[in-house]
């Protein structure tokens, strides 16, 4: 339900990155979203065009990587893929598991364009 405001936060972060690297435009934005993050990727994708309009990301493609839910069992130590409402171990059935991934809501990377139309170099986190 709050995907529009999450999208605004995303664009604000992207704008800051573009300024930081002296970019004139953003080509693409890649985010990672897990099913347990509380944001819906489709709603995010739909609110995106409204939010990017008139910003440095005006023409940027939004790529949403959907991460799987993975848990590690505290009893048998094995990892399993899980679903949002069944985070139990698929090997031994125990519910004492730790989430390894699936609740992410991350800005992963941004592809930028510089003035002379060359891509700015990769910057590592």
């Amino acid at each position, binding site marked *: 339900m709050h995907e529009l405001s*999450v999208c605004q*936060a995303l664009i604000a972060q992207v704008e800051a*990155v573009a300024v930081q690297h002296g970019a004139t435009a953003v080509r693409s934005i890649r985010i990672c979203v897990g099913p347990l993050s509380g944001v819906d990727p489709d709603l995010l994708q739909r609110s995106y065009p409204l939010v990017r309009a008139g910003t440095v990301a005006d023409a940027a493609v939004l790529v949403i990587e959907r991460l799987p839910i993975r848990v590690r069992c505290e009893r048998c130590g094995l990892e399993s893929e899980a679903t949002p409402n069944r985070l139990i171990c698929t090997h031994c059935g125990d*519910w004492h598991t730790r989430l390894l991934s699936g609740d992410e*809501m991350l*800005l*992963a990377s941004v592809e930028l364009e510089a003035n002379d139309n060359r891509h700015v170099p*990769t910057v590592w986190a």
Partner: protein
Amino acid sequence: MCDTCGCNITPGNGHLVASGGKLSRTADGKAAVTILRSLLDENDLQARHNREHFDQHGVLAVNLMSSPGSGKTALLEATIDSLRNELRVAVIEGDLETENDAQRVRAKGVPAVQITTGSACHLDAHMVHDALHHLPLDGIDIVFIENVGNLVCPASFDLGHHRNVTLLSVTEGDDKPAKYPVMFRAADLMLLTKIDLLAVLDDFDPQRAEAALRNLASEAPSIRLSARSHMGLETWTTWLRQELHAQRQRLAQHNSARPAIQPDGRLMHHGTTSLVHSKYVFSRAKP
């Protein structure tokens, strides 16, 4: 911050950014800026600041979440009555509109600040910050934050509180934890409320609700209670006393607590950002 210390990289997603990993290059091989920062970063920072406020005053902050009408305000009224001679309580109320809930709490003689969010379906750390500067935190033991009635969005926003309590009333169906896993996973405690109505509702099985919570790998305890008949209320106030005691002990050792978010999630989800906070208004408690 996160983009330099790498604290967003966890065992679960580290492979994505390892050299040559999926995210180091765009599909066409062009260079990209790798960021890996929670989209909710800004809210996180504010939440951390709020937690410092609470901690400086030795206050335990408890966030109450549920669908609309599950009995959050009724629970607060009953709790205030039963702790009256023992603990000092203050309340931050969140609703889309009206001052009703803050008035109900003030009628019990307790300071309350009402946040009306307009159209925002959850509280965020900025709203709570503004509100808590209008609460007399000195001499307060527990601040309850009654979130907007909504089983979806409030779960994503760290407010700077210490504990999440999720209410599920027996009229809502015992499969709610399975239907709203993000919300129930965030609970440090699940309260099954309006338990006095169980007699007339033959299809709500508290054990089924608790089993659905375990399927979310949650160890959160569950308490069955009724704000109407006061059944189970003592178990709830005991939990509050224990949490307050534990929090004070942590503070003595310069630690604090964060609400239930599993360890790896905690690395990334210090909080969230909402840009809608410019639209809300809040009113202060009458002196």
